């Protein structure tokens, strides 16, 4: 079943809850090869996104993404916060005017999200970034016509495999790039965030 704006509203609450719960785990993961701010960025950013969407009960599906993107940019001015903000704003542009959120819209959203992140972060596949998980999510959804919850389950599985694959990559961007070989063997922290994003979307879609 395709979701309405009332349903997609639940994404933002669920993301805020998940990133609040994962705050310490993300700090620890990022601390191995970064500056430990990822957990703080994500919990603060998605709490702000949740509040922005909650404050606009009339907002449609795309409008919610715009509000979330703006809130993320303000509340989480780190690299990952800015990339997430870009993803949501590109989702807004791609889905502007959409009345429902089904498998086709999910595919559009994730493709726009991944392309926005690639453009803003100037990363390429294989650079060991969030893109190495976002791109497989978008690809897994591409052209599917099964129900949303099933499609998102497939995307979540693809995301998990893609995250595992980042263990064999060497970081090329951000503070992790300074660690180069030391980053090998570890899953990418940004990619871990992308897995959580799609898992939460799947869980919300399943419950409705």
């Amino acid at each position, binding site marked *: 079943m395709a979701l309405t704006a009332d349903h997609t509203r639940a994404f933002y609450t669920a993301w805020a809850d998940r990133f609040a719960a994962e705050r310490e785990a993300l700090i620890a993961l990022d601390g191995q090869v970064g500056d430990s701010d990822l957990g703080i960025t994500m919990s603060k950013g998605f709490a702000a996104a949740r509040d922005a969407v909650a404050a606009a009960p009339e907002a449609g599906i795309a409008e919610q993404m*715009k509000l979330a993107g703006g809130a993320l*940019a*303000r509340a989480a*001015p780190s*690299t990952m916060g*800015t990339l997430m903000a*870009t993803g949501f*704003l590109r989702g807004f542009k791609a889905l502007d005017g959409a009345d429902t959120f089904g498998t086709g819209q999910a595919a559009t959203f994730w493709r726009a999200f991944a392309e926005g992140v690639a453009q*803003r972060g*100037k990363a390429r596949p294989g650079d060991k970034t969030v893109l190495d998980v976002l791109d497989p999510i978008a690809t897994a959804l591409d052209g599917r016509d099964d129900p949303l919850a099933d499609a998102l389950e497939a995307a979540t599985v693809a995301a998990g495999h893609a995250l595992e694959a980042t263990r064999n990559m060497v970081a090329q961007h951000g503070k992790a790039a300074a660690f180069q070989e030391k980053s090998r063997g570890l899953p990418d922290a940004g990619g871990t965030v992308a897995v959580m994003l799609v898992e939460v979307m799947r869980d919300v879609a399943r419950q409705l």
Partner: protein
Amino acid sequence: MKKFLNTPEAFVDEMLDGIYRAHPQVTHTAGDLRCYVTANPVPGKVGIVTGGGSGHLPTFLGYVGDGMIDGCAVGGVFQSPSSDQILEVTKHVDQGAGVLYLYGNYTGDIMNFDMAGELAELEDIATATVVGNDDVASSVVGEEHKRRGVAGIFFLYKAAGAAAAQMLPLTEVARITDKARARTRTMGVALSPCIVPEVGRPGFQIGENEMEIGMGIHGEPGISREPLQPADTVVDKMMERIFAETDYKTGDEVAVLINGLGATPLEELYILYRRVAILMEERGVTIRHRWLGEFATSMEMAGASISVLHLDDELEPLIAAPVSTPFFTHVGG
């Protein structure tokens, strides 16, 4: 570390507070000292917004004022401002004709300005972007997009500001600024390191009898570490790089900026200028405009940079136009 500080953490905000108290020509917006804007916006004019890390005065904020640029998002020492700060400055500066983003080529700044531009678009403010990349030493010919922006951005502010003051539309202001960008080259040389207040010690060393040619304004590694040589030889080495990738011809005109990095006396800058003037004279090139002093510093780093803008009939009057900012005044001509 020997600096006039109250606390290292207050370095940027107390500097800004001092500037606002000294210069009523500038103010801040959005309740944030780091959102620095002109107090005299011109209705209907294209706004010009810059931004970047602190530690380089007069760059970047020093060029906000009459006839130059309109706003500056101020970051911590050597740190990018946030996209939200850039957006707030953009909203304040926009006078209905759109806003030009003009800043140096650094990853964090690019990401945050691009993000701010996307947020501004959602508020129906048109933006265009020109990214300064004048530092010849930071990448080879053919890879100019990887070059850092350093002191030569002064010429871009000058050209952009004068073009906007003529009430040209955003696309024209951007085109002219980009032309100035493409015709500007800078080479720098460092003699001693700089100290970030919150770090409290130099991040690297340069030996007593050494210089580093091509070092960046944050201490990025240069092209070569060499024994210090006579000033003329140093200028010859620097200008050789600039001449190698420009096509100045007899009768051409240039503007020259001799910039001190923070701890080099003006006397020494004139010794450098002397040799630049001789080299230009030998080539039959006229130095139509020249400025010497501190334009883009790196805290207390000793050293200097030479920037050259290859003028043409369109750029010359823009570089000559009068401006008045708290840090830079030019009466015109």
